[in-house]
């Protein structure tokens, strides 16, 4: 079955307005499925709850900047060494964005529980001394360890309705290869009811078959494949191109003002289709990256 769809059709078909839990893959400014994220912004699909990997970045920031996110479950949204994420920060500070406080352990083990149909994810003893779970009673509970009688922390399973995940390559059936770091993208894909993959290129199955055990996502988990070379821009795509720090610094400069994030969204996303956006980014400095 050929699962390759256009960017427009993949998002229109699989990311419904008001989606309950939308997960975005990638970690920090790497392997963010930005073409899919931008298309969600263009189509204006509202997100009841957004879930990031342990470290969300421009993927979450852009959706928040576009005003589409009601709540976010995350353990980090920021631009790492480049600074804080302005739209995330401002929306959290003024209360317009509800933040479900998570930590790395819960996001990882919660997704694992989602992938496995496990009723919940007990967490290591000691994690209960942090304030994280007290700030997020919806996602965390105390439970009695039936083997020792001690009270331990447990997280609710994370079952994204849709996951937007980047992979380097996939075949038309959705068998995909992760180049470079995995982050938690494989686990996220296993946990989600629907997986929309953004890839640098679609390749014959024979290319996927050459990769060893442990480096791929099997196609039976994947619902749509969208080929967008350069589509992680301005974040990096491992094996293909690096972070466009200049672009992100321009965003951060623009976003210093309260209207900046929306202005960016209008100019760079709503104002142009994906092909035009990527074309416009082929500046001399980053030109090779999108060749």
């Amino acid at each position, binding site marked *: 079955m050929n699962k390759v769809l256009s960017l427009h059709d993949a998002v229109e078909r699989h990311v419904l307005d008001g989606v309950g839990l939308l997960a975005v893959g990638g*970690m*920090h*400014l*790497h392997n963010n499925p930005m073409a899919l994220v931008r298309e969600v912004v263009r189509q204006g699909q509202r997100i009841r709850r957004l879930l990031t990997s*342990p*470290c969300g970045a421009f993927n979450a920031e852009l959706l928040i900047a576009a005003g589409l996110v009601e709540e976010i479950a*995350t*353990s*980090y*949204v*920021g631009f*790492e*060494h480049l*600074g*804080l*994420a302005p739209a*995330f*920060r401002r929306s*959290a*500070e*003024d*209360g317009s964005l509800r*933040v479900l*406080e*998570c*930590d*790395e*352990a819960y996001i*990882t*083990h919660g997704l*694992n529980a989602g992938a496995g149909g496990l009723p919940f994810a007990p*967490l*290591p*003893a*000691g*994690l209960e*001394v*942090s*304030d*994280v779970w007290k*700030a997020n009673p919806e996602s965390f509970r105390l439970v009695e360890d039936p083997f020792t009688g001690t009270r331990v922390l447990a997280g609710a399973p994370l079952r994204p309705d849709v996951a937007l995940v980047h992979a380097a390559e996939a075949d038309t059936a959705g068998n995909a290869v992760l180049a*470079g*770091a*995995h*982050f*938690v993208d*494989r*686990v996220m894909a296993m946990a989600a009811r629907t997986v929309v993959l953004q890839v640098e290129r679609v390749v014959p199955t024979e290319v996927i078959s050459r990769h060893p055990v442990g480096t791929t996502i099997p196609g039976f988990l994947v619902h749509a494949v969208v080929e967008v070379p350069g589509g992680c821009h301005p974040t*990096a795509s*491992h*094996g293909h191109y*690096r*972070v466009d720090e200049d672009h992100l610094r321009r965003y951060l400069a623009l976003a210093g003002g309260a209207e900046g994030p929306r202005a960016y969204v209008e100019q760079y996303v709503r104002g142009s289709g994906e092909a035009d956006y990527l074309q416009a980014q082929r500046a001399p400095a980053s030109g090779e990256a999108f060749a």
Partner: protein
Amino acid sequence: MSQTDARTNGGAPAGPSIAELMAVELARRLRGDDVAVMGTASALPQIACRLAKATHAPDLWFVAGGTCGVNPRLAPAVPSCCDEDLLRADTAVPLSDVVLLEGRGDVFTVFFSGGLQIDAHGNCNLVSVGDRARPSLRGPGTVGLPFLARVGRVLIYTMAHNPRTFVERVDFLGGPGFLDGPASWAAAGLTGGGPAAVVTPLCTMGFDSQTLRMRLETVHPGVTVHEVVEATGFEVVVPEVVPPTPLPTDEQIAILRGIDSDGLLKGR
């Protein structure tokens, strides 16, 4: 974490920058039988680990969280913990494995930490300043800091030594230090060893064994004890004698700059 308050180095161009001195201070605290892990924006501890491996601790293991390269070998060092270059390493594993192993409690012996706020007992906060529901500053989030409760030694570093960062009590406890001091620390019965050192642009601190409060160990070249006390938003324990932080040797600096060949730490 964001490191916006970096103190610039006033020394001669050939001498170590403050950040370079800090890397040496961190490296000094690593042992050959350690397995260290670090996360977001961790160029400084990564360079410290490579320096330690190149000098006194060749058998040290370290994992650059994010990509999870194991003993990444690259020069130049990179500012992002998720950079693909960190896969130029002995090997690399999925992040989900590293997160899993962080919980085992006996695999990683050193965890590097930091915070928007760091308090007198070494608790760290990357989440929010003020009331969490309507914070005056919303930080990025706590990432893996709750695991500090289970790790052998926590090494805290920050480029911001000022009273906003060093507070009596964190507004949000994300990364546990010695909690509220000896009684609460004992009651919690944690398997981790707690914070072992705090390295800042002004000084290196440890913890008082009785009160479990931060205690000045050494002051960096040109810094006075008074400056440290003024820059710290809580009463830091000051021993009678506070020696100067040992200067890095020329060999250490040469090795460090060979690793940090893009000079990430040089101007800071």
